[in-house]
């Protein structure tokens, strides 16, 4: 018996896996950040789906997803700032060349 929430959970799982693959294999750091945003979006979809179709439907799930979006926005801003600072110092956004800490 597949319930109503199952398609949303499957879609969120697919999006999360695509985001994970992108975050682990892409070279450009901007795309890595965007892939992390995609994973956060998959989690948001789960939260909103359970807020409507879960055992105890409640608006708290939507509020949690709003907080999640806020944290994601802060993360994107700080990530882009770090990228620009690194690009000024090193002239690259390739994640494979970001190895200053281990030298």
């Amino acid at each position, binding site marked *: 018996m597949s319930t109503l929430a199952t398609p949303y959970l499957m879609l969120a799982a697919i999006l999360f896996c695509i985001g994970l693959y992108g975050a682990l294999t892409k070279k450009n750091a901007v795309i890595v950040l965007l892939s992390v945003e995609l994973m956060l979006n998959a989690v948001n979809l789960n939260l909103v789906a359970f807020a409507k179709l879960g055992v105890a439907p409640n608006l708290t799930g939507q509020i949690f997803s709003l907080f999640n979006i806020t944290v994601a926005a802060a993360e994107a801003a*700080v990530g882009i700032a770090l990228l620009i600072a690194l690009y000024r110092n090193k002239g690259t956004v390739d994640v494979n060349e970001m190895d200053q800490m281990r030298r």
Partner: protein
Amino acid sequence: MFGDLGEFFTSGSNLMFFVFAILAIGGAIFSISFTKVVHMVISLAVTFLSLAGLYVLLHAEFVAFVQVLIYAGAISILMIFGIMMTKHAEEEQELKRPLHSWLVGLGVAGLFGILFYAIQNSTLPDPGVLEAGENNTLEIGKLIFSVHVIPFELMSVLLTVAFIGAIVVAKKEDD
């Protein structure tokens, strides 16, 4: 699982879910298969917009509009600015380590298999009725300013700290 696909498509909201889901997955897949970084950001914006459509289907209108404003508006534009301010002429080429890509793909496929198994085998009880009220935004506002007011204020402090920190980090050293 596939037996009830016929009755699945008879309902309009299920059809809309299918369209938005195809758009979301298509945007995500194109975003990791395009070679130019700007195209990747645009196709991810398509994914964000279709997720906003799914939120409307789930009766979360306020979250949907926040999604359009924050993700499709702010974060996509921020990422495009990030691409423009760094090196954007070169195309994203393949990794020099194909073994790494293959291993990551295998691991992600394994994770998806586990998730698929867990989701398909879980029996979710029948959902209750969401008491969302007439005005979704009004209800969310009432809840945020009564029950969740402390996390809300913490969020504003977090945003302030993060954005001031971002400005300090990205500022030029000499001025």
